[in-house]
């Protein structure tokens, strides 16, 4: 369960959301998109196009094989998107096999979009809640969404209930702007809210559904609007991964020279510790993102070099060495204001 705290204007979290869905299409997973803000069909029309190259077909085959072999019986797949900046001298194909690259300036072709089954849930088009759900004691919008998800999971056999189905596939669920006023929840407007437990109950039941089936889910939430911080703490406990996006738009950091190459910061609040005592802790916790014309990348946050008179130019060995590191934002940063041609 990937829980994303939206940035103030929702620009970048939307992008991350679309990447999750696009990756699903490219991997051949089924999609379920839920929103109260835009119609899911519109969201699906706006997905970024994957960067294709000659070995695309082979990569897809490898990816699909890797995905299937990682499936546990009844535990969920966690999608942890970590976009690496491709090094300038190497092409993306020789890079990590986990995930694909996307070109933000192009839209995904409709044929590719239609290649997987898509289910959508647009709150304002749904019928009003059914009587059985009164026993749930939860916000009706959330309850309807849960019912819808559960129905898809059992009908399409993602929970292994249909032994006839030979090929097991993964369902990618994306829920946009949960907790906002549009869902009928008032945690973003009032403190104390009328029903502080709706969101947490929803997450708990969703977690149960995810654990029981082959699905992964990303949720974006306008966390900066939620008045009651206790809810955010509880929500963090109930999620597997919690990522916060902080954009620099309109904040004082926009003009801070430290951050001049980036558009925002990525805060990883929590990573999952599933099926093991340990978790996969990365070396650094300072991550920043930037949106270039074609690529959206997340890199390690690096201080720009202090270019005084006695600056020591980054030697060729240093550059080569740093280029070997995984998230090589440092390759770009070490250059600083001077341009180095390769």
């Amino acid at each position, binding site marked *: 369960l990937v829980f994303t705290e939206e940035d103030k204007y929702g620009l970048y979290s939307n992008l991350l959301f679309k990447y999750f869905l696009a990756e699903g299409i490219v991997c051949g997973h089924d999609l379920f998109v839920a929103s109260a803000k835009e119609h899911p069909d519109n969201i699906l029309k706006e997905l970024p196009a994957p960067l294709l190259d000659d070995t695309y077909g082979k990569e897809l085959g490898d990816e699909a094989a890797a995905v299937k072999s990682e499936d546990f019986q009844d535990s969920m797949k966690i999608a942890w998107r970590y976009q690496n900046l491709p090094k300038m001298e190497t092409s993306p194909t020789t890079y990590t096999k986990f995930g694909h690259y996307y070109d933000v300036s192009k839209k995904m072709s409709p044929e590719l979009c239609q290649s997987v089954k898509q289910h959508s849930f647009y709150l304002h088009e749904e019928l009003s809640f059914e009587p059985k759900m009164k026993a749930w004691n939860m916000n009706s919008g959330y309850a309807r969404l849960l019912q819808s998800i559960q129905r898809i999971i059992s009908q399409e056999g993602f929970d292994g209930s249909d032994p006839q189905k030979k090929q097991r596939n993964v369902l990618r669920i994306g829920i946009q702007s949960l907790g906002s006023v549009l869902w009928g929840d008032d945690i973003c407007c009032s403190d104390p809210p009328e029903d502080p*437990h709706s969101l947490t*109950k929803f997450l708990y039941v969703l977690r149960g559904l995810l654990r029981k089936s082959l699905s992964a889910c990303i949720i974006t939430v306008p966390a900066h609007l939620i008045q009651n911080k206790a809810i955010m*703490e509880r929500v963090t406990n109930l999620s597997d991964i919690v990522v916060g996006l902080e954009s620099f738009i309109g904040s004082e950091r926009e003009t801070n020279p430290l951050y001049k190459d980036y558009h925002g910061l990525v805060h990883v609040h929590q990573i999952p510790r599933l099926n*093991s*005592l340990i978790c996969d802790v990365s070396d650094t916790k300072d991550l920043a993102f930037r949106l270039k014309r074609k690529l959206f990348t997340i890199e390690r946050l690096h201080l720009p070099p202090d270019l005084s008179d006695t600056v020591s130019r980054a030697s060729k060995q240093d550059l080569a060495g740093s280029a070997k590191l995984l998230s090589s934002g440092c390759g770009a940063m070490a250059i600083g204001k001077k341009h180095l041609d390769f």
Partner: protein
Amino acid sequence: QGQFTLLRDTQTDGSFLVHHFLSFYLRAGCKVCFVALLQSFSHYNIVAQKLGVSLAAAKERGQLVFLEGLKSCLDLLFGEEEQPGQPSPLQFLSTSELRALFDFVRVSLTPTDGDSWKGPVLLVDDLSVLLSLGAAPVAVLDFIHYCRVSVCYQLKGNIVVLVHSNEDSEDEENELVVNSLCHHSDLILWAEGLATGFCKDVHGQIKIIKRLSLWQAEEQDLVQTYQYKIQDRNVTFFARGLSAAVL
């Protein structure tokens, strides 16, 4: 015997303690009732296998009663109408009443004829989730109290409960529950993140507080502090500042 142990974590994940106690009590031959609210059965099973215990086998022979919260709530909400005589232990999702959960615990740990297990143990992971699901803090404390009377005093068993807390937490209900439990516990294991921040070789610090002051008026609580590093099958503890990476 009759001990109430509180596992507490702050700024870090204390679930390794839960895994430890689970395998510890199972290996000791106790009958364990595990109320697992946050993770699925397979998660605990896989970790327990790394620690040398099979949960599935324990369940088969009746040594382990496992309440998988996530699965039960799905059965409750999406399943057919339940039989009138058997309310689901997760009833509180709709009614905010923890009575059914307590009955479940009591029934699972009451020894039946033919049981040859050593003392019963109740393990809860984790209690803070009950607050998220709509239970009032007072109800949670009552539930613990009832469990304590039943398991610790009547059945002479032990209870181990995990709670989360945060520094400067704004979750007042949670803080209330945690503080109250701290006062009533015999032993507190408190896992914290390091004050100096994140470190690769030392994952955190654990404070072991033996509440001697509960039983004897003049005694002070005994507090010991260690640091730890979690590995795939093991957790190593060492004195503060003496991690293997430093020596």
